[in-house]
């Protein structure tokens, strides 16, 4: 019966496997190409300078409405980007992203220690420039660039810091 079947359907299995393996080889090379392209793209993205970026100016508040040691929450530049406007002890106004650069927990301003504190993993950033003071955050907090126009505070861009 088997012999009859072989005569009726003379498939060369050796040949059949040979071709499918060659196809597999091509597919793997294609996958390798995709991974290499992805890696090169990621390297190019990592090499890009990430400094200041300006966005549309948004009015935040009257400059004199924020007392020393107080803070005001706002969203900039996108609705999901929560930020904090702070009046420091020396009277200067600064603003930072409120997302911790570790795992995105919201940070809170501690005026007595002049720092932004992340309660999730005990991280802390300087309220002066957003640099990392303690804890696991790998980067400084992105700083929101501010401008005072006729007594009003405007957010005009975002400045990303370097490594912690």
């Amino acid at each position, binding site marked *: 019966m088997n012999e009859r079947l072989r005569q009726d359907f003379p498939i060369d299995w*050796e*040949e059949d*496997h*040979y071709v499918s*393996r*060659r196809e*597999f*080889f*091509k597919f*793997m*090379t294609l*996958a*390798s*190409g995709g*991974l*290499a392209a*992805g*890696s*090169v793209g*990621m*390297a190019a*993205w*990592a*090499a890009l300078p990430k400094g200041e970026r300006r966005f549309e100016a948004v009015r935040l508040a009257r400059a004199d409405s924020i007392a020393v040691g107080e803070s005001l929450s706002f969203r900039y530049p996108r609705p999901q980007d929560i930020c904090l406007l702070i009046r420091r002890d020396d009277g200067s106004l600064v603003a930072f992203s409120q997302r911790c*650069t570790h795992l995105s927990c919201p940070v809170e301003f501690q005026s007595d220690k002049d720092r932004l504190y992340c309660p999730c993993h005990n991280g802390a950033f300087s309220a002066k420039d957003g640099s990392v003071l303690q804890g696991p955050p*790998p*980067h400084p907090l992105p700083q929101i660039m501010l401008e005072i126009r006729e007594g009003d505070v405007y957010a005009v861009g975002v400045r990303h810091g370097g*490594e912690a």
Partner: protein
Amino acid sequence: MKDRVHRERRSQKSTVFVALMLFQFVLVLLQLWLFVSVLEGQIGGGAKEMAIPGAAVSVVILAVNIWMLLGIRRMDAGE
């Protein structure tokens, strides 16, 4: 007789094929592992210095894979 020699040669080539395929599979796995490691580093915010060497190694692996593929094609054409 001629057919048998042809079959034996094909069988030998098939063995070489499997060996090369396994080697290529390991290379692609290594490439995938590299890619995921660099991606994790990027998302985690650290280890940016890994990205360029990772890409260089990935391109070298691609070159080896292409070289092997061309070798296979040459082997086929030589039949």
